[in-house]
């Protein structure tokens, strides 16, 4: 199996940076949709390990950076929910063209999962996606406040319009608050990753939904941990699910 290679993904703005994990099988291709900010950085290694595990089963995988993030050009503040979704579509088109695959599977973590819901694909894997974006923004503001209080105990007015230091415009916040994610894909694996296997209220409506396979993993949220987390249970679950859908 060849190792991953860097690729340039054509997109409506500027080419995006990607890492292609090539494999021999041509029937299915996978695109991994990352989250943002610290969550993206912290999950970087896990994305690599997941991509390698799937490629070892003969399925090509693409990891990529949204415009204005990672190694892709542009500024973070130039983005919107639509441009991020467009980036996923660009990565998907590139992957189908590059591999000659007939079917596409998207894997999305956190906001990457929520964004993947807006894109067409044959199979969809969601890792702890934000189905209640308004609640996420509220929690994020609370977390930012705590972070700033820890850094500067005298801090009274910690900035709110940001995710881990990345600025969010009022327009972006408004569009995120108005988001009403739905799962209308016919073949979806929804994975809850939490301290408990009890189904959260956020995912309860989807547990019995036709076409959605729900799994709850008791696992540390690796996207927000500084230390190493054993993500093998999630990697194995996802790899097996995708292999079974070849």
């Amino acid at each position, binding site marked *: 199996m060849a190792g991953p290679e860097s690729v340039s993904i054509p997109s409506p703005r500027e080419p995006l940076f990607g890492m292609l994990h090539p494999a021999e099988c041509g029937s299915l291709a996978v695109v991994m949709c990352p989250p943002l900010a610290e969550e993206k950085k912290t999950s970087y290694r896990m994305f690599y390990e997941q991509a390698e595990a799937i490629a070892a089963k003969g399925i090509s995988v693409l990891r990529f950076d949204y415009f204005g993030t990672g190694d892709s050009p542009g500024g973070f503040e130039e983005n919107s929910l639509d441009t991020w979704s467009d980036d996923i579509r660009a990565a998907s088109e590139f992957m189908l063209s590059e591999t000659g695959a007939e079917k596409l599977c998207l894997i999305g973590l956190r906001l990457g999962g929520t964004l993947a819901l807006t894109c067409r694909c044959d199979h969809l894997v969601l890792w702890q996606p934000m189905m209640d974006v308004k609640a996420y923004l509220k*929690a994020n503001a*609370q*977390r930012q*406040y*705590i*972070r700033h*209080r*820890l850094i500067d*105990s005298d801090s009274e007015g910690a900035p709110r319009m940001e995710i881990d230091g990345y600025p969010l415009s009022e327009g972006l916040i408004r569009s995120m608050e108005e988001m009403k994610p739905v799962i209308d894909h016919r073949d979806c694996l929804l994975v809850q990753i939490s*301290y*408990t296997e009890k189904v959260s209220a956020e995912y309860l409506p989807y547990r019995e939904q036709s076409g959605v396979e729900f799994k709850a993993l008791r696992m*540390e949220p690796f996207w*927000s*941990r*500084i230390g190493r987390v054993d993500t093998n249970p999630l990697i194995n679950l996802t790899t097996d699910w995708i292999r079974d859908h070849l």
Partner: protein
Amino acid sequence: MNGENIKEKIKDMIVERLFLDAAPEDIGDEDPLAEKYEIDSVRLFEMVIGIEELFGVIIDEAEFDIGLFKNVNSIAEYVRSKKDIA
């Protein structure tokens, strides 16, 4: 819900939510949580959410204080004050 019961619930929540490699009864009431369990902002946020969900209280910004999370006793004292439990 009495005072001891609150402390037990807090210890269970801390171990469960922070994935600690320790038993709830290993946490002393006066143990300095930040130092002993490496509480960073992410873990502190987990504890805030855990307390809010567990006891049905809202820790609003005006009363948020790092000192509340100094140890199990300080958290229990805060919960008691919010729930008006003797």
